[in-house]
């Protein structure tokens, strides 16, 4: 039976191959230390992927028949759920691997070998570019332990009792929007003068209508293309360093999970436009100078040239469990920026609140007493 998946194995010793973060465009076998470029490997495995894709297609037809039987039999899987599933056989150990329709790369749960899902990089589904991983699992662990240091409200036993359940490297699909814009803004600005005239305080304020207009370019504004990944979390790990953006090659996926996009570029565009609009307005606003106050009264932006590219960005996902509650942290696989939400010890929060109240009370009491004295004297006068 033909393989329905592709394991990246060393052409020299057949050991599993995985991309080593930060190794540029080379992949080195950890066992025999042979080195290959990503292009060589892609070429080497292209035929295998095509063969696996054909075998998978045959298998999918069989699965569809099986699905119909399951639905008729009133099985536990719904038709939508079954349609989302993808089954293939690990070419290394022969075990059946089940993943969803968006999975591009995964690992065999039985033998741990990295597995590429064939036929997912065809035509428009193939990413244009990829930012290879620059940080390792060890970096992610260290970033996590550094992150919860110095957090005053962290439960005292979090460090000892929290258990890192999984650290998984994953390529997340991103849409990178390039957009030139033309914008015009209208602002109301004022300048004020203060002086005394006899028994009167006089304030004179000059009002101006200020307009600013021009063009500017935004390069590679990222919007994540995965429904699974929360937009806010993905925004939090920005920015990525685009100088390390390279043309897509499946070899970079080896050893990591990867999903294809399930949010289209059209669906992601409003998010990018909203961000571009805010920054454009900010640029025009900041170009107004020489005034005491300035407020925006009107703003209009037109899009000029623009394009979009499909990219894969590296992310480490750490899952921990503390007191039976899961906590997830996400780290930018390129820059090492880690984001997440730590648990809060409510007793510590109350204690610090009370301490802050007690420490500041003598100071605020004397300040308030002083103010009360001044006001009282002013009223008596």
């Amino acid at each position: 039976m033909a393989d329905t998946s592709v394991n990246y194995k060393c052409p020299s010793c057949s050991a599993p191959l995985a991309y080593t973060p930060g190794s540029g465009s080379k992949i080195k076998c950890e066992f025999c230390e042979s080195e290959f470029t990503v292009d060589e490997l892609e070429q080497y495995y292209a035929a295998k992927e095509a063969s696996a894709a054909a075998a998978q297609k045959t298998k999918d037809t069989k699965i569809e028949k099986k699905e119909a039987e399951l639905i008729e039999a009133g099985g536990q899987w719904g038709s939508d759920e079954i349609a989302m599933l993808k089954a293939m056989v690990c070419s290394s150990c022969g075990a059946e691997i089940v993943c969803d329709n968006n999975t591009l790369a995964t690992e065999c749960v039985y033998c741990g070998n990295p597995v590429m899902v064939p036929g997912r990089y065809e035509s428009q589904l193939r990413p244009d570019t990829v930012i290879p991983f620059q940080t390792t699992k060890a970096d992610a662990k260290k970033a996590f332990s550094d992150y919860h240091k110095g957090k005053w409200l962290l439960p005292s036993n979090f460090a000892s009792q929290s258990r890192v359940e999984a650290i998984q490297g994953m390529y997340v699909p991103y849409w990178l929007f390039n957009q030139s814009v033309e914008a015009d803004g209208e602002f109301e600005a004022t300048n004020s003068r203060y002086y005394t005239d006899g028994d009167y305080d006089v304030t004179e304020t000059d009002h101006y209508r200020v307009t600013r207009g021009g063009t500017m370019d935004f390069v590679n504004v990222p919007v994540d293309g995965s429904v699974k990944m929360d937009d806010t979390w993905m925004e939090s790990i920005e920015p990525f360093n685009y100088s390390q953006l390279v043309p897509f090659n499946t070899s970079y996926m080896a050893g990591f999970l990867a999903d294809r996009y399930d949010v289209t570029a059209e669906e992601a565009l409003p998010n990018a436009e909203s961000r571009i609009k805010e920054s454009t307005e900010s640029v025009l606003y900041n170009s107004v100078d020489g005034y005491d106050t300035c407020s925006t009264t009107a703003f209009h932006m037109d899009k000029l040239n623009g394009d979009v590219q499909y990219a894969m960005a590296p992310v480490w996902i750490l899952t921990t469990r503390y007191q039976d509650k899961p906590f997830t942290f996400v780290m930018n696989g390129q820059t090492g920026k880690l984001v997440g939400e730590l648990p809060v010890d409510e007793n510590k929060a109350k204690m610090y609140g009370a301490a802050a109240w007690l420490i500041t009370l003598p100071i605020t009491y004397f300040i308030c007493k002083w103010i009360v004295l001044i006001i009282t004297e002013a009223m008596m006068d």
Partner: protein
Amino acid sequence: MRKLLTVFMSLLLMLALTVPVMAGADSFPAGNLLAQTTTNQKDPKAIGQIKLPADLGMVSLFDMENLLKPDQQQALMRKLVTIEQKYNVRVVVMTVPKDAQTGSESGIKKFADETLNRNYRDEANNNGSIMMVVCPSARKWAVTTDNNMRERITDENGFPAIRDSFMSDLKDNDYNGAFNAYADKVDELLAYYEKEGEPWDPANEFSFLGLILGALISAGIAYLFVSHLRGNMSNVRHVSEANEYLNRDSVNISRQSDVFLHTTRTVTKRAKSDNSSSSSGRSSSNGGGSGSY
């Protein structure tokens, strides 16, 4: 016979004990409870156009304008003398007619300073002197202190407290109330000095309102502090702009105009003090101040 001798000896002993007490009372000026009506005016001294008795220093109340009834005079004199004996000080009240000097704030202060210095100042032997002078026809007042008294009743804090104690009564022409309020406040400030060893300062007083306000502000600060700590527990933030991805070199502001529209003018009348006023009029030798009511 022996009984008669015992009674005679007892009388002699009582006499011997009584004489020094009377003599002491005569020798201590604070013991003289003389008002203007009973003052010896055989040897008058003049300050400005006002003639004052030579033995003015013997009295603590000199009501030239007869603002107080006899019973009010008696009661006030008792109060002043009690304070004087209690703290070894001179506490004087005087009312004067209007003349070129007492008709102005600075003039009445100068009059008060000179009167105090000539008749009551005795810093080597007492703890200080304080005098309140009121000219009802000019509606002017002054309070003056010598340097010993300034250590106990400071110009910065004690004098304003005394002034505030009697001003409302003066404005209402309640002179008896004003003089008694003055005496009570002097008593209170001297008692504070005796007890604490330092002059009264409102900054040292407990302020309930200050405590309530301070507690509320501290609660706000504590809330903000804990909110900040809570905020540190998560660094997941929505990003609403794309500043990181702006090509700064591409920014081309090609259209700009600044058009003057109009000028607005806001005029606010500066706060003015009411019809009563006071000034410090302090010198190196005298403290206190004066004012109108």
